[in-house]
């Protein structure tokens, strides 16, 4: 009898884990990181092994699951550059060069460890399917697989805090399971009711000794018209600030 009771209790306690919908959890993590439609300012800092730094400041807007655009505000050599992502399509517009040119998610318009996919990140739920969720005590470990070949990383592992449903570490891997980079989420701050990490650090075994940091400021919900996310509007992003 005691054995049956123990078995039932064990089953009941395991139910939440079995009932856990990985994709739904991923959606929650996405929403906790960013509102569905928002604007933000970011500073990217590339740090070389000798401590040399280079900083970039960006204004970023996002709408829904497939639209994101960024405008470089600093340094002066990059001011006015803008990037646009519509689903799998990415463009870079350099002032004076004029027309937007198509770029790929694996490239980096700023150099360093962050690539275009990190800078123009869509919702993880839009690009990845959750294969498995592991219970790691205070954290969940989500194993993600890309929905198609057009994304930068074929596999992603997200270590997320159970209570906050926010990532503390994200590992980006190739199809063969080789680690490309690790993102570390730190310094949770309140952005007008949105509690999320204000600092994202990254390093990569491919760039030994190098580190890149992304700082967030003035992140807030904001709605935009779809026409803002078009090639013709790339030169006018500054007017939205």
């Amino acid at each position, binding site marked *: 009898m005691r054995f049956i009771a123990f078995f039932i209790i064990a089953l009941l306690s395991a139910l939440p884990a079995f009932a856990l919908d990985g994709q739904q959890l991923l959606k929650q993590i996405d929403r906790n990181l960013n509102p569905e439609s928002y604007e933000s300012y970011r500073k990217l800092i590339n740090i070389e092994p000798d401590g040399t730094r280079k900083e970039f400041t960006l204004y970023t807007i996002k709408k829904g699951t497939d639209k994101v655009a960024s405008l470089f505000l600093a340094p002066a050599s990059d001011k006015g550059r803008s990037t646009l992502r519509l689903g799998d399509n990415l463009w870079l517009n350099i002032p004076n060069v*004029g027309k937007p040119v198509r770029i*790929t998610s*694996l*490239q980096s318009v700023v150099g360093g460890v962050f690539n275009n996919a990190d800078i123009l990140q869509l919702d993880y739920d839009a690009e990845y399917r959750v294969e498995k969720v592991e219970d790691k005590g205070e954290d969940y470990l989500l194993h993600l697989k890309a929905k198609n070949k057009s994304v930068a990383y074929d596999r992603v592992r997200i270590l997320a805090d159970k209570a906050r449903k926010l990532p503390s570490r994200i590992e980006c891997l190739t199809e063969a399971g080789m680690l490309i980079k690790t993102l570390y989420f730190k310094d949770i701050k309140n952005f007008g009711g949105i509690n999320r990490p204000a600092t994202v650090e990254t390093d990569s075994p491919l760039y030994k000794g190098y580190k890149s940091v992304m700082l967030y400021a003035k992140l807030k919900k904001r709605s935009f018209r779809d026409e803002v*996310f*078009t*090639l*013709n509007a790339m030169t006018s992003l500054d007017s939205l600030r």
Partner: protein
Amino acid sequence: MLRLFIIAVLLTFAAPLLAAEFSFDDAEVEKKIWHLGGYVEARPGLNLLDRDAAQTRLRYYGRHVDDNLPDFNGKLLLEGSLEKDWAKLFLQPSLDYTATRLNSYLRLTWYEAWLQAKPDDSFRFLLGKRSLRWGKGYAWNPVAFFDRPKNPDDPELSLEGYWLATADFIQSFDGPLKTLAVTPLLLPQDHDLNRDFGNGDQINWGGKLYFLLYDTDIDLIMMGRGSRNAGYGLDFSRNLTTNFELHGELAWLVNSTRPVVTSNGQPSLTRGDSISWLLGLRYLTEQDTTWIAEYYRNGNGYYSNEMNTYFQQVERAWATWQQNGNAAQLQRLGQAQSYGRTAAMRDYLYIRVSQKEPFDILYFTPALTTIANLQDASFSVTPELLYTGITNLELRLKGTAVLGAPRSEYGEKQNDARIELRVRYFF
């Protein structure tokens, strides 16, 4: 005890430093209604002249030049803007200084000067001088009917615009057609305004229809008959995979004219429809090497026999001048500038290979570019080293070797080689 004290002191002083290791204040991103920026550039260069080349003879006959001709180029490009609500004023003057042993000059050019009204995210109107840069090609843009031609040796240089009025109507949709944009334009031309656009004191008109359809950028472009004859264009660009982009352009010029030097040395004009096109790709390898390749068919370019005739005429004119000092024919041929322009003939191949940050050197990009004339097998090779690691400073060392047989396009260029350093500081 002393050790504890030192650690405590170090921690006291280090704590604020650690906290300030990464800082981002809201004040850093405050928007001002005005902006002033630009860059200053120094570009010294050394040309190794080919004294026997047609372009050298036409340019330097009667003047003493050495085999090595250094030059110095300086540039101050300013950008100023004023933006308030839906209106924006943008000004971009450029002050250029060039000096060689033979001459020097200082020139002010307004690349752009325009006023834009944007009452709505889906509509904007622009009046003023603007470089449009239509087309998808990197080295050439045959569909850029309303732009000055760019230099394939340095396709990212700023271009002087034309005075025009244009508007954008943009609509986004769900479904295969994601974006539709209509861009009509008017470009007046007379002896004061847009003087080099053509002849005829006309108000030229044209426009562009842009579609993002099935993840492909497509432009349909038109130029009405005015100061120039009518033209129709199509371009496209698409990422086939995450690291492979394909693009192309097709331009049909109706009844276009071409100045030709005849076998008796006289200038003549030929007329006829011309179709120019290009097909290109951009490919990024796993090692971060970017390949850009373009094939360009210049429908309005010279055939091999026409170019050969021209070079023969230059040789004869040169011989005449050496015999009796009569430079009249050299002067006449020197005015036929269409023979000396870049991509003057029919078939070209452009290949550029660049490697991002080799040997883990951040912001360092070496590149190698070649432009080949497929008709006469002459070509140029341009190695380049670019470093942007110092904030707002860009350093570029670039060399060009020009190779080709006598009476080939590149074989008759002014230089056998050129090396230049470009130091550009942005502010």
